[in-house]
């Protein structure tokens, strides 16, 4: 059994890079990403697992990083918004103005990215099930919906061309 007590030197794999960090077991992944790694894309909103602004992808599943201990993530692959450069979903959010104030954007992007990676042909009903996990206080949902649908269409077109 592995025991972590006090300050521990651990390695977290974030966006494919290995980061050696000194952390305590009570440190939350969201804070470690923002304050120790410098990846400030994930935002602290409610910090209660409700709003989704802190969403990152851990081992291919979207997770709310405010609800995860950093120490739990040793040996797992963490993907943050900083690792989504030049993806279809990111470009679609820009093209369709899938944001207003931008605070919720990285959370929506991460969840939508995970959703389209998991099920590129996902239907509207299930898209709603996935994306209901994120809140936009500006209520800019229309732009987000357009962006997600566009990214899905482009990903499917690309897949069909390759097939």
């Amino acid at each position, binding site marked *: *059994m592995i025991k972590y*007590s006090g300050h521990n030197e651990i390695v977290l794999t974030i966006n494919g890079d290995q980061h050696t960090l000194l952390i305590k077991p*009570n440190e939350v992944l969201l804070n470690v990403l923002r304050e120790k790694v410098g990846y400030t894309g994930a935002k602290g909103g409610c910090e*209660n*697992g409700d709003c989704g602004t802190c969403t990152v992808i851990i081992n291919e599943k979207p997770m*709310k990083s405010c609800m995860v201990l950093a120490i739990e993530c040793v040996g797992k692959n963490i993907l943050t918004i900083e690792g989504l450069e030049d993806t279809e979903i990111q470009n679609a959010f820009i093209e369709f103005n899938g944001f207003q104030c931008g605070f919720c954007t990285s959370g929506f992007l991460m969840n939508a990215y995970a959703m389209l990676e998991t099920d590129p042909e996902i239907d509207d009903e299930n898209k709603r099930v996935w994306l209901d*996990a994120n809140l936009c206080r500006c209520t800019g949902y229309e732009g987000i919906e357009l962006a997600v649908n566009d990214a899905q269409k482009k990903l499917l077109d690309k897949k069909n061309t390759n097939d």
Partner: protein
Amino acid sequence: MISFDFDYYKATQLEEAHALLFSLLEDNQKPVYYSGGTELMTSFRKGKIKADAVIDIKNIDGITSIDCIENHVIIGACASLNDVIETFNETCLSDVLIEIADHTVRNAITMGGNLCGRLPYKEAVLPLLALDASVVIYRADGLKEVSLRNLFEKRLRIDKGDILYQLKFDKDHLDAYASKRVTESTEIDYPLLHVFVSIHDQNLFVGLSGFGSYPLYKEFDLNTRISEIEDYFLPYVKDDSRSSKAYRSHLFKTTLQTIKDELEGFDD
């Protein structure tokens, strides 16, 4: 940020997690088992629960696996709700679990966490009780399989330190079922009322969450009049800031009536 320090243990064997908890208790420490962590993280942050040691049990062999051999299902207690929903899509179990929290949080919440947590709703227990599931508990004398109906009264009655390891049931146990959930305003919220009704042989199972201070259930004869079912549950109705007794009672009666109208075999 969690405002207090604790030690974190990553257990891989039931025996070692169980022994560690008791050895920490002997040292006058406050240990907790940890799996999905959603409830504990919230409680830690709010200062509702404090711990000196967190024993993470989700890396224990077999505790996250889901197996289905012919009709017999075995679900590890630390399997996430989404893993169960995806494996048993469009079943009574998935229809109930998909209503709990939101999709992202369901990647973290575990079956065992939902059943053993401090929150009073424990909605996963409704279909499991209807399916007459059994639970496998790790205790000092080893693994023990017990009927969930024998162990569940207000909450899962397992002794301090015992670990919920697996859930077992037969997949096609029910002849028909219906599940209806009412929340205060938004869909993603705790239930004001969750009614689960199922039919097996000539028995009618009715389970409720959110209605009283803990999940309620009873199995009736299929010919029981709806007024008798209402009379059984109505004394348990709770009054809180989210709903009055009168409103919850009204919701219960109308929801039960809707289910009766929709569920084949449920005749008054």
